[in-house]
């Protein structure tokens, strides 16, 4: 068997495979550290829902809160296990999770999602 124009074909294949695997080797060795969640610095250990739910479904919870507060005017604070929470990202969540960098960005960067919350909502001042 003879491979006609072997040089061109093999060079072409190498370029093709290189392009195909571009995302893999482009991101390889990047400084993408695996998120390392921590409890909030103010010592609170409880949240409005359990950790598992919050990790997977916090975006839905926030959307539901938004609709309840803005659309239906249900702005009453939530009382869960004796603790009061304001139904608000800016004035609720961030009161405990005081660092956007740690609490939001670490995972969002890792999973490459870019929510637009902070285009309007005001993030707490980073203390560290």
């Amino acid at each position, binding site marked *: 068997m003879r491979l006609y124009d072997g040089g061109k074909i093999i060079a072409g294949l190498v370029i093709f495979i290189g392009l195909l695997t571009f995302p893999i080797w482009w991101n390889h060795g990047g400084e993408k550290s695996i998120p390392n969640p921590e409890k909030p610095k103010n010592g609170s250990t409880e949240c409005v829902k359990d950790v598992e739910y919050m990790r997977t479904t916090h975006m839905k919870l926030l959307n539901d809160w938004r609709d309840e507060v803005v*659309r239906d005017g249900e702005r009453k604070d939530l009382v869960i296990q004796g603790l009061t929470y304001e139904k608000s990202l800016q004035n609720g969540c961030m009161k405990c999770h005081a660092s956007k960098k740690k609490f939001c960005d670490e995972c969002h960067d890792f999973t490459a999602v870019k929510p637009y919350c902070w285009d*309007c909502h005001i993030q707490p001042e980073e203390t560290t």
Partner: protein
Amino acid sequence: MDVKRRKFLKIAGLSAIAGVGAPSALNMLFKGEVQASGGHAQEPAHGAAVQSGKRYGMVIDVKKFDEHPALVQKCIDACNSTHNVPQFPNPKDEIKWIWKETYEHAFPEHSHYKKNDKIHDLPFLILCNHCDDPPCVRVCPTKATFKNKDGIVMMDYHRCIGCRFCMAACPYGARSFNWRDPRGKDEHENPFIKKTNPEFPTRMRGVVEKCNFCAKRLKMGLQPACVEVCAEQKAMIFGDMNDKNSEISKVLREKFTIQRKPTVGSNPSVFYII
């Protein structure tokens, strides 16, 4: 197989009719069943808010503002700082929640042959009228603006796509579009929002914004920010107009008030005493 051309055409025609007709026939049958079992229960109109029975309104006593001219700016500043309203240097970019206007601009429909000279100098505070039949809500393609159950015309900035239909529809010019990023800075590095209120969000470039009758403050049991700062002079009266015993109802019964552009038929909730 030996099929005559004539026979083939017959079969093909019949199957075509059956193929097209059968689904719709079945559909009709099933629909008929559903209707028979489900009756004619009417769904509530899409998007219609459940009414709380409240209708918030405001009376602005222009005489009081004439007596205390400093109050005008105080009200405007109170609103701007509460809601992070940006101050753009170019008047074409201006964002207005509550602002000062002359009589001619506020009430263009009122014709006078000879009118009191004084009236031209009166400071009229203008804000969203929170109409009972708001034209802006009717035109919004995303339901970003809507009337809530307390009669307040609200905006959900998450949904606003910046089409500006509402600005075209509003007969009162009460809506402003963010042509620029409100969080930006001017050429002298001064931020457009002088001092940010950390309790309230800003807006982003490309959305429309307007007065929200301080919906959040109302739920906290407070009066709107502008009403609060002129409470001493009672220059603005705010309350539920559906409550017969509220102060605003009393004032509306006792005093002669006018609304802006009543012929538009939008039924504003802001009234002026001149």
